[in-house]
Each structure stands twice: as structure tokens, then as C-alpha cells.
């Protein structure tokens, strides 16, 4: 095992992918000599050459659209979108072309394309640099959407994404890029859990927190804090946002009877809505309390000095845990309720 940051683990995964298949190539803005604005591709161009690690013109639709053509020619492109908010210019190519070509061609055309997106907020970044666009892609048939929450998963899932014959949107939580964890660089990929399976990040018995990406760490912190109060929280790390591993989620909710879903993307029609609906359908008779969502607000991502009020933190998660556990409910008034936590069926 080796201690690596999440960014370094992705770099190692990319390096493995480039090494093991000469049809794999990386494309993106500034990914070559600079090594990417987050240095995730650091050193790869020097090692594999400019034909394999391609610095592209500054054009997101161009990057994704040419990757489509390269895939048609038999390549397996891994493209980097520099920041989450910059993916929108490529949106048409992703949802109309990348996602649909396999279907449109009756399965004749494969799109083994990985679209890496440094993702979400909490790093004090400028406008358009902290967005959570995952719901757009989860809503689009034909795409697989995954989110790594730790270096080991990042290393393995990146390679699994490259090996997949489906297009994969690969979300990288940028506020975890520099967080370290143990990575087994010698792990046999065939023994690793497939990327479509969720992971129980922490076992518990009183309530389940379902989350993904950087929020996994926040949820684990909340679980640790709750433990001091004698509350045992289970944390489910989705890893795959499409498909959802509903078996793992449902098993956890049936065990605890209570569930809080948290993500920093906006609430309305977000992934939390899908999760709560599916959990309610599958686990209704096991639920002791209505499922709750703790999410970003239905606003554009706020200026960085105010982002702590948008990104759900430990306290907002614990507040929702209190609600699903019926703890101190009477003490919580609408005025005192932190924004973003829905406490009744009325006005948010």
C-alpha cells in the first residue's frame, strides 16, 4: 500500500491505462507540459509523448467532439474538462452524440470515452469553477456517471472507466484532490469491486446517510460526531450515480429504517430526489420517518466567501439526522432551521 493524494491516485490510474493499452490517449487543455491546472496529469506527456497526452485548443465541444471521432476510429480517449462549469459548452456533444451513438447505431458503434471533470466546490474558487452538474448527466440515458471519494477508488475506478465500452462521466471532487489515503497500486483490477457498486463507508444501525464524492468525508465526520451522542450512523458512498446500486442502498435503509441523503448539488430534481423516490418505493414499509435531503440550495453557486452556506456541512447533516430520528423535533422551529433542510411538506 502507498499513501497517495486523490490527484496522484488518478495520475497513477491514467498512467496504468496509458501503459496497458496503446489506444488510450488523453486530451484536454493544459494537460501536457503543465500537467493540468490541478497537476493531475503531471509528467504523463513527458513519459508517453504528445501524441498520447494531447494539449488541445481551448474548446470544450471540440475536445469532446473530436474524441467521438477518435473513438469511432478505435481509440479510447480520456478527456479532461478543466472545471465543472466549463462542461456546458460540450453539453450537446455529450448528451446528443457521446450518449446516443451506441443506441442510434443499434449497438454497432462503441463510445469508450471517459470525460473527467474536476468537480464541485469548497475550494474558494471563482465563478463557474464549483458547479455540480451531475444530475444533467444522470438524466441522460447512455452515460455512466461515477464519482470517486477516496484515492483507492479513484485509482481503480479510473481504470475501470477507461476499460468500459460505455462512455463514463468521471467526477473528481476537487476539494479532495490533496487529501491522502492508502492505495494498493499492485491490486488486481479483476478482484476490485466493479465501479457500479456502492460502498458501505461506515457501518451503523440508527440511520443511513447516502451520499457521494466529497460529501462522503463530510458524512463520515458527521457520523463520528454523532457517535459522541450515542447515535450510530451508516454511510453509503454511492460511487456510481448511474446506474444506482439500489440493492446496497435499500439493504442499508431496511436495516436502519431512517435515511438522510446529502449532496451539494441543488435540490430540485437533483439526485437526492431520485434517491428518495427510489428508497420510498423500495423500502416504504421499513421507514420509520420520512427520508430527508440535505443539499445545496436552488441557487447558482454562490461567491466563495459564502459557499459554506451552500455546501452541506456536518451540522446541517446532523440536523437532518435529528429530524429523521425524531430527536428534539419540537425544538426546531422553521426560523431556526438551516436553509436547505426541508422540515415539512410546505415552503422550502
Amino acid at each position, binding site marked *: 500500500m502507498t499513501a497517495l493524494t486523490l490527484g496522484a491516485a488518478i495520475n497513477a490510474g491514467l498512467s496504468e491505462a496509458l501503459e496497458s493499452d496503446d489506444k488510450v490517449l488523453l486530451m484536454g487543455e493544459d494537460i501536457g507540459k503543465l500537467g493540468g491546472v490541478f497537476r493531475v496529469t503531471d509528467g504523463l506527456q513527458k513519459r508517453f509523448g504528445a501524441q498520447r497526452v494531447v494539449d488541445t485548443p481551448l474548446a470544450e465541444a471540440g475536445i469532446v467532439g473530436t474524441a467521438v471521432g477518435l473513438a469511432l476510429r478505435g481509440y479510447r480517449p480520456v478527456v479532461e474538462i478543466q472545471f465543472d462549469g466549463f462542461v456546458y459548452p460540450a453539453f450537446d456533444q455529450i448528451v446528443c*452524440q457521446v450518449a446516443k451513438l451506441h443506441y442510434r447505431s443499434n449497438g454497432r458503434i462503441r463510445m469508450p470515452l471517459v470525460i473527467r471533470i474536476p468537480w464541485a466546490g469548497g475550494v474558494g474558487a471563482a465563478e463557474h469553477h464549483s458547479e455540480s452538474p451531475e444530475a444533467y448527466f444522470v438524466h441522460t440515458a447512455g452515460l455512466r456517471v461515477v464519482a470517486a471519494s477516496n484515492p483507492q477508488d479513484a485509482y481503480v475506478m479510473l481504470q475501470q472507466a477507461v476499460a468500459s465500452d460505455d462512455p463514463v462521466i468521471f467526477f473528481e471532487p476537487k476539494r479532495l484532490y490533496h487529501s491522502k489515503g492508502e492505495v494498493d497500486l499492485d491490486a488486481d483490477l479483476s478482484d476490485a469491486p466493479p465501479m457500479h457498486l456502492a460502498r458501505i463507508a461506515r457501518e451503523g444501525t440508527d440511520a443511513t446517510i447516502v451520499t457521494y464524492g466529497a460529501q462522503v468525508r463530510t458524512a463520515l465526520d458527521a457520523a463520528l460526531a454523532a457517535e459522541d451522542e450515542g447515535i450510530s450512523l451508516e454511510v453509503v458512498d454511492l460511487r456510481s450515480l448511474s*446506474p444506482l446500486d439500489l440493492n446496497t442502498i435499500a439493504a442499508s435503509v431496511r436495516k436502519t429504517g431512517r435515511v438522510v441523503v446529502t449532496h451539494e448539488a441543488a435540490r430540485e430534481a437533483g439526485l437526492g430526489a431520485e434517491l428518495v423516490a427510489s428508497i420510498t418505493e423500495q423500502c416504504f414499509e421499513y421507514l420509520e420517518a420520512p427520508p430527508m435531503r440535505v443539499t445545496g440550495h436552488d441557487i447558482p453557486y454562490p461567491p466563495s466567501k459564502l459557499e459554506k452556506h451552500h455546501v452541506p456541512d456536518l451540522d446541517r447533516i446532523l440536523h437532518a439526522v435529528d429530524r429523521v430520528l425524531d430527536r428534539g423535533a419540537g425544538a426546531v422551529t422553521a426560523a431556526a432551521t438551516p436553509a436547505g433542510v426541508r422540515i415539512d411538506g410546505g415552503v422550502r
Partner: protein
Amino acid sequence: MTYTQTQDSSIGRARHHDDEDALRLLESDGTRVAEPTLDPWVSDLSPHELRALHRDMVLTRRLDAEGVALQRQGQLALWAPCRGQEATQVGTAHALAPGDFVFPSYREHGVLLGRGAQPADYVLAWRGEEHSAYDHTTINAAPPQIIIGAQSLHATGWAMGAQRDGSTDVAVAYYGDGATSQGDVNEAMVFASSFRAPVVFVCSNNQWAISEPVTVQSEFPLAGRAPGFGIPSLRIDGNDALACVAAMRWALDRARRGEGPSFIEAVTYRMGPHTTSDDPTRYREPGEVEAWAERDPIARLEAYLRAEGMLDDGGLAEVARAADALAAEVRAACIGATTRAPETIFDHVYAEPHAGLAQQKADYAQYLAGFEVSR
């Protein structure tokens, strides 16, 4: 740059929607004229090849007429007519090698003919049976593109792959004048130029993007844009099949020699509606259509071949019979099509299993089975 049009932008602006300054080898009456840029590229065309060119244009027109008729008879949901654009489509496609790969728009029936499409390939998508009926690997053509200009990037990427493979294969993106306003087309030119990708952009300037005239897309000739990206261009008479073959050969040769992308603006005219849902009488004058009818691409090549003694009434009758036979096959393929089973709508969304979709498919199959039982 090979772009040789007038540098007087006021003249370019005033006339760019017309074909008077476009390069040509055949006048409207079929008279062969000298054109130094294009001449060398068609000097070896044999009578057999010239007749094949004519034949495929006639076949394309007949196929197109059949498509319109099938739509009017309710057999097709929609059809995008290509009448008037046969020389651009057939001429450029004739210049291709088998290993080249085309990325067509939805109107490129003559290009597909040139790639060897089969009768069902033309109609199943328009009938609503398939999204893309043909096997792209058999005819080296990507599925027809509906999103305007998106395929220009795919062609460029494919060309970048061909370049990496060290092959001499060339990608060709076909699109209309309206597409030149799209970001994708401009980004494709940036990528193609930066990487010297072996790709040819064929812009069929048919004067109209549904109801918008080409003057809404650009005040300046479209071919004049490409040199700004570092891409040489030619503005040719798109109703002149010889000019189309010549320009395409020029562009393909550049690509195969590693000189990168080229842009061809084929100035032509869409004689019919944008699609069978469109009503062009609302936005264009009858006189305009009549004027372009006098520059008809098939009549022009026919006159030339007759004058040269390469085609006679017997030959024409034979071509007409072949066209009727193709139309009959297309009609049979259309009417004989069978709609797939309902559960197939869930197939091929993903290459690998997807739990959520598998569940939906199973649920829907169960729902449908309930109807079977109740009967």
C-alpha cells in the same frame, strides 16, 4: 492559400449567394470550359467513369423522388429532399477511396449511394424503424447527423486517429451553409488546422437553411472563412459534377500527402423544401427556383456527355431503367419493413449491463405481458 476569390469584399458580399464566380468546368449548357485549378484533377476521367457519374446522379434523383412520394403516401414520416444537389453529393463521393470515411448530414442521399448503401438504408430511419439503419463499417459512413454541424468534429477526430495510425485514409464532413454558423463547425476547423488533420469539409451551400437565406449566415462567401483558420478552400459550382470531382480530388490529395484539411464550398441550390414538412413558397420567389432549374446538374452533364458522344438515347434509357429498379427496391424495403418488438427499445442504450435500465425493461415486459393474458 488556394482561395482565389476576389479580395474586393464589397463584390464578395454582393454576390456570394450566387454561383457566378464559382469555379467550374461545365457551363450550364454543358459546354466544357478550361479552369486551371480544377482541370488537372479530371484529365484522366474515362468515358466509363463519366457515365457512372451521370448514372449515380440520375439514381440519386430517382431515389429522392421516391422518398418524397413515399412520404406523401404516408409510408415515411419525413424525407429531406436533395433534388438539385446531386452533382455536389455524387461528384465528391465519386472521388473517395474505400478506406475514407464520410460523416454525412441527413440530406446526403447521393453520398450514401456512392458509399454503397443498400435500399433499406435510405428509408428505415425516415420511416421510424431505426435511428440509423446502415452498418457504418460496411459503407464507411457515420450515422446521418441531425444536430447541425456536430459531425464536423467527429470527422476531425476520426482524421486525427487516421493520422496517428499512419494511414492515408481521409475523413469527410458534409454539412450545409447553415452549419457554418455553428460553433462545432468552427471548432472543427480550429482542431483540423492545429493538428493538420486529414479531413475535408464539404459545405453544400444550397442557399437556404430552412427559411433563412445564406446571407443570414454570412455576409461574405463561406469559402472565404477557411483561410482564416489556415485551411485552404475552393468555391466551386456545386451543380457541375466535374468541378465537384476535381475539387474533392484536390482536397483528398492534400490530405493524403499530410498537408492537412481543406474546405470546399459547393455553390448549389435546394430545389425542393428543406423537408417534406416545409413550405418554401412562404419564403422564396418562384423566379429564383426557375433560374436555378436552368443550371440543373444532371441536364448539364448529360449535355456534355451527349456532345462528346459518350451517351446516347439507348444509354439514357438504360440509366432510367436502373433508376426505376432502385426506386422499386427502396419502395419494397420501405413497405416491407417490420417494426421491432417493443422491448427492443431498451436494447443498445449501453454496451454493458445497466441495472436501472434492466429493471425498467423487465417491468415493462411484465406490464405488456399483462395485456397478453387479458386477451
